[in-house]
């Protein structure tokens, strides 16, 4: 077992090494892989964003939500409507979607505050069920185009980013979406990290662990819960914007717009590791990998969740996924990241710096 002091040269070397490896993979993927593979990574980015946002609410604050698919959909629809009806440049719709979703998120959180546990779960369930029906509603068709949804929402011309050189055609768009997705993932990660590592973030975990004690320490439960729900919704909507821009379409029964979306986000978060910063990122990669692998099992060609609601038959994929989930809940409550941390500690231990003002830099 290796013991390394926090902040020592070796510790910094390990950190730098980690960054280099990640950067290498990130650069390698869009330059060396086929555009369909690149697209899969973009899919993983989309899931990472949604799962990271859910993680803020569920993983860190302990508030159950299965309504995040609605926020995802709000993002997608905001982008689609602004681009198609109002001629916005796609890039700006991220900001607009975040604002809309933040407001809706806060409104949803308001009743959720007075009710706890399963009641909260059911309110968010209602939100997840409501959203697609509202979008489909004929009275709103002027805005949402009803059940057929909105299509050809994408960058007509891929913007030129000097670093990337010129990107052309389908391939160029795939590479562009990859980089765009990566940027949003990094931004989302930084937002989550900023929150979690702050006084506000400690208040979130305190609420999760012991609400009464948190209040006694001076944490305002109401504003904290509403704000974190709002920001979580805003982040989730970014995933929706990205997904719509990538596929060019959004419909009321689109992939992550229905309740199924919420379930997928939940899966990604749990498998990767709830309440860990890297969990949703690992979860997103693992999920997309599993999904593409299980497409080849049996006759099913619609992936892990294809079997749901009779979309496709005779695939054991979802069943396996359900079993994996149960096993994870028993064996590794903090997901793959939690497991990796536990095993990693047997190889390398970072010895933290002693605490107190005298030892501070």
């Amino acid at each position, binding site marked *: 077992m290796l013991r390394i002091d926090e902040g020592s040269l070796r510790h910094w070397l390990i950190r730098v090494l980690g960054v280099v490896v990640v950067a290498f993979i990130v650069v390698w993927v869009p330059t060396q892989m086929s555009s369909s593979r690149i697209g899969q990574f973009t899919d993983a980015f989309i899931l990472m964003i949604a799962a990271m946002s859910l993680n803020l609410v*569920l993983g860190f604050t*302990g508030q*159950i939500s299965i309504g995040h698919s609605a926020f995802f959909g709000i993002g997608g629809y905001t982008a689609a409507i602004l681009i198609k009806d109002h001629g916005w440049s796609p890039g700006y719709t991220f900001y607009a979607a975040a604002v809309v979703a933040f407001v809706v998120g806060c409104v949803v959180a308001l*009743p959720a505050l*007075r*009710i706890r*546990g*399963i*009641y909260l*779960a*059911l*309110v968010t*369930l*209602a939100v997840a*069920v*409501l959203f697609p*029906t*509202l979008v*489909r*509603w004929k*009275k709103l068709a002027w805005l949402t185009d009803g059940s057929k949804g909105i299509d050809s929402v994408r960058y007509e011309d891929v913007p030129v980013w000097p670093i990337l050189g010129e990107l052309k055609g389908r391939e160029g768009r795939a590479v562009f979406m990859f980089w765009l997705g990566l940027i949003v993932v990094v931004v989302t990660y930084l937002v989550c990290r900023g929150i979690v590592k702050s006084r506000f973030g400690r208040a979130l975990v305190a609420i999760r662990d012991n609400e*009464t004690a948190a209040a006694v320490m001076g944490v305002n439960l109401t504003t904290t819960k509403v704000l974190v729900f709002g920001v979580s919704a805003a982040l989730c909507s970014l995933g929706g914007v990205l997904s719509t821009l990538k596929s060019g379409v959004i419909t009321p029964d689109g992939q992550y717009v229905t309740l199924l979306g919420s*379930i997928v986000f*939940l899966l990604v978060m*749990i498998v990767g590791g*709830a309440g860990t910063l890297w969990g949703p990122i690992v979860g997103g990669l693992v999920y997309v990998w599993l999904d593409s692998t299980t497409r080849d099992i049996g006759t099913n060609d619609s992936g892990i*969740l294809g*079997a*749901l*609601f*009779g979309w*496709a*038959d*005779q*695939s*054991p*994929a*979802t*069943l396996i*996924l*359900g*079993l994996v*989930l*149960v096993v994870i*809940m*028993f064996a590794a*409550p903090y997901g793959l990241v939690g497991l990796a941390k536990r095993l990693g500690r047997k190889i390398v231990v970072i010895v933290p710096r002693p605490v107190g003002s005298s030892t501070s830099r």
Partner: protein
Amino acid sequence: MERFFQYFFDGLSLGSIYALLALGLVVVFRGTGHLNFAQGEMAMICTFVVWQFNDWGVPLVLSIILGMIVGFALGAGVETTIIRGVAKKSQAGVFVVSIALFLGLNSLAAMIWGSLPPEQLPGLFPDEPDDFQRIFGAVWRYEYIGVLAVALVLMGLLFLLFAKTKFGLAMRAVASNPESARLAGIPTGIVLASSWGIAGAMGALSGTLWGGIVGELNAGLMFTVFIYASAAATLGGFDSPGGAVIAGLTIGVGEQFLAGYFPGWIGQEMKLSAALLTIFVVLLIKPSGLFGSTKVERV
């Protein structure tokens, strides 16, 4: 007036199916404090089981009883093997596991049976186009009358079980104070498994009744019913069986009225949303539901 009675009666019938499933949710919640997200899927699987027995030539009534037995075993088995272990670790874990069950059962049903064409599951009651009775000018179909009757009878039996039997007493005791129940010699493990089992059996019946009305069986059979049932349980207050029944019937009737009287704005496709929104508002005013109890927290 005709329309009023028509909506009222149809609503009562559908509402009784929601109430059955909601009652299952409440029985589980009272006993163990968990929300079983897979309640609807357990009911769906059992409906397929009923169809399977029937398809093998077992008479329908016997098939339904067998289906309810399978439902009981499924519920009790899930509680003892999976839920109990996870519940020791975390409450959120139970929620995740019930979602896993939801996925797994759904997939299992799709794998084994796929989607059955319409009218494969024979209705329990005559459902030819002219099998109805006119009362107050409204069409009372025998099928709907039958559903309502069966649902009400089962709920009645359940309340008798709760109120009059030794086992029902034990269930109430465990729900009220599990620690003292153990001290009184009640095998709490068996009681808890049974509450899941009873919920499973009621789900089986609710699924079969619903399947008979819908006619078509597939893995998505119970999803909407589950949403209605959870809305009913929420509205009624999660710890009140009577509340779940009343709320289930109310929601059934309410959605028929909303859909019937506002066809332009709400209609068939928006009735679920309208019902959910109404409940949302009710919860804002009364967070523990209409009949639920608020508990004093001790620190």
